[in-house]
């Protein structure tokens, strides 16, 4: 079996997910037994015109990036969205509820038009077709290895479709709601081994919604535990502005959400 060539690309992001992958060290070396990395700006200076798998970090937030993304899509057999920004828009999409002019004025008050930007920051799937994704902010590197391994084996990426609660309960955590905190665990995709709730935090939704989340019930529960509607929406929009919009356009809490493309 010839090893598939893998190239890493970044768009609007902090590049932390790529950094997390570099930090894999020993496992990264093992990973090189099954793949060839031909382009990875953070780690090497070589570039390649051909590759089988493109791993893309960051969201799509400038029109001029479309050309590069289209080129990647045309070259790669498989496109993997890496991390929350690429997967669901992530933190970048927080600005999608404001006008472009407001955003530009807030970020660069002295020179609002210094940088070109779109009206919205979208997930990579807003520009090109994405075949698989590795969720999270940052990504869980073990999960990244698993997705790559599964794709090389010809299997589905194999991400869980169940929520964080499943892993949180397996870890025997007392629910954070019992400590008076609120948490998005019931509607957010597991796979992180409930890392935040198992270490004194709460789930803030970096991995995106599960298929078919019961948003209405989640809101009712957060309200029951003392959040007003503004705070509820703020907390749900931190990473998932775009996902929540998609949900609202569908009619809230529709029993039939769009089917997931890559993670059956």
């Amino acid at each position, binding site marked *: 079996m010839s090893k598939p060539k893998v190239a890493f690309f970044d768009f609007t992001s902090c590049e932390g997910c790529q950094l997390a992958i570099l930090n894999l060290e020993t*496992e990264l070396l*093992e*990973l090189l*037994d*099954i793949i060839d990395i031909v382009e990875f700006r953070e780690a090497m200076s070589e570039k390649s015109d051909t590759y089988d798998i493109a791993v893309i970090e960051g969201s799509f937030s400038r029109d001029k990036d479309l050309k590069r993304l289209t080129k990647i899509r045309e070259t790669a057999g498989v496109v993997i969205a890496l991390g929350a920004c690429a997967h669901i828009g992530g933190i970048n999409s927080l600005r999608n509820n404001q006008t472009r002019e407001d955003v530009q004025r807030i970020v660069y008050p002295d020179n609002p038009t210094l940088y070109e930007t779109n009206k919205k920051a979208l997930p990579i799937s807003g520009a090109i077709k994405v075949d698989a994704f590795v969720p999270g902010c940052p990504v869980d590197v073990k999960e990244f*290895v698993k997705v790559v*391994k599964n794709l090389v*084996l010809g299997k589905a990426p*194999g991400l869980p*479709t*169940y*929520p964080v*609660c*499943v892993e949180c*309960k*397996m870890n*025997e*955590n*007392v*629910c954070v*709601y019992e400590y008076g905190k609120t948490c998005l*665990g*019931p*509607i957010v995709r597991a796979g992180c081994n409930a890392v935040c709730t198992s270490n004194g935090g709460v789930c803030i939704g970096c991995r995106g919604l*599960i*298929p*078919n*989340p*019961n948003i*209405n*019930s*989640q809101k*009712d*529960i957060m309200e029951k535990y003392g959040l007003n509607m503004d705070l509820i929406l703020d907390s749900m929009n931190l990473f998932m502005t775009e996902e929540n919009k998609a949900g609202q356009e569908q009619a809230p809490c529709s*029993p039939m959400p769009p*089917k997931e493309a890559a993670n*059956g």
Partner: protein
Amino acid sequence: MTTVFNKQSTKDAVFDGLEKALGDYKIAAITKKEGKVLFDYVTDVRKIEQEYTPTVLSPKKFFFPQEEVILEYTFDGKVSAKTNPEKIVLFGIRPCDISGMKMLDEAFSESHGDPNYLSKRENSVLIGIDCKSVCDKDAFCYRVNSQNPETGFDIMLHDIGNDYSMTVVSEKGKEFAESYFDSEIFDYAAYAKFNIEKKEAFAKAGGPFEDLDILPEIFEENTNHKIWETEAERCLSCGSCIMVCPTCYCFDVIDELALSMKVGDRLRRWDACMLRSFAEVAGGENFREEVTNRVKHRINRKFNFLMKKHNQAVCIGCGRCVRACLADISPVTIVEELTKTSRALKLEQRNDDLYLPEKVTITKVEKFTDNEKFFEVEFDNGKSLGHEPGQFVQLSILGIGEAAISISSPPSFGSRFEMVVRTVGDVTRKLHTLGKGDNLFIRGPFGHGFDEQIQKKMEGKHILFIAGGIGYVPLRSLINLTLKHPDKYKKISILYGCKTPGDQMFKDELQYISSLGGNIELLETVDIPDDKWLKQSGVITELIPMSKFDHLNTIAIICGPPVMYKFVIQTLKRNKLTTDNMYVSLERRMKCGVGKCGHCQIEDLYVCQCGPVFRFSDIEDKEEAL
């Protein structure tokens, strides 16, 4: 309880014993770890927490862990099954969780014994600590009677002050207690006092669910209850309820290949029927996509599906799912609501007149044969019987008794109806002595006759009535009804067989029918003809080919003595008529007529309720039917 023996030790002696056992066993008990109170392995038995705090997970995890390897393999095809039994002592398990372990023991040992679970269980000693009272507001062990398990553990400790009183129910437990626990003299009085106090404390919390024993029935009655939808609306499908359940044991199987791509494991990991992906197949279809169905499935497993198998609720009332549910969905609410609905339904259905007969007066009697007489009766209160063809009434003569009698007149709005009665028993013998103007009592009509659905199905078809002897009587109601509008049918053939010409009933009517012509034919036969008999002789099956039916467009309606059915049905099948196009009217002994007394039962069917008219395909597999 099959107590092997009783024993008593000081609490100190128990912990000293556990310390000794540490060399031979791993000891799991309630302990504090990273701020959590949970069951975990301990290396210092003095750190075992004795006071009860409901743990997030039950101790089932020691035998059926969240994730475990069941198979190891190399990518070139070497496979080996993996079990990993260790000798463990599980100390301080509570009665509810013991009841849960008992369920899992049954689940994992039935039909195919699960090696991973059972090998761990065989190597374990379970030491329970009995509860003195209900632990918190969410626990409902007393509602499902799981607070006093008699098996599922080896040793149960009852806290009687300075000492633990011990109930030992297994040889394994006896051996352990004798090896590790120094004894005191067993104080029966203190043990009895503990039990009395426990009983009182639990009684204060409440009793078992009303109708606990018949919950499966109640759940069956309520598959479309609105509570399933209202609970599903709030349900997050987060799976928490199942993760924390001590009696849930569904799992997923996952292959994990090492990065070397040379070796791998096959794991099993807890799965949950509340999760959307649980019943989804590779092609994308999901057999339990609706949350409502998943909620229904989860609760039904506890109180219906598996309860039928285990003969007790499979929920042990530990309350973990109630504590874990952010949306406040509780099995208690659901069980109570369904029970309430079923009870209300039953009260509503109460019929105070069920056994109350109404008076009728005989208006006409005609002798048909030596044994059979025709009776026409009329309700004294002028009401109409309102029956459908094929139904029956319970006819009674006060002081003699009640008997089930077919109605032989077609449906009518008038207050009169007709019966033909053969003298066979006390009631019918007495009836034969009565005449015009005498009174009888009637209950009914009862049973399932040739209802609208069957009548609709008959339209446009060739109708084959096949009556043997007195079997003509129950069919006459339908025969005469169809004869009112013969144009609705392709053809009407009436096949009537009797033993002798003298046994024929409704002779005038038969003569009239044979004169009708058109698409109506009457084929008669007798087994033993006399000199005057000019028609066919022989058994009734010989008439069947004469009706020249087309098997794709025919409905056969059959009534006669038991022996006749077998041969008639054989002949019809030979002529390619399928059994879903055959209807039979069956005779059985009936006492109540309303599906209670049990005399008419064919396996799970009450003939008086589901019959006497059956589509033959519905009962042909039932041994007792014919």
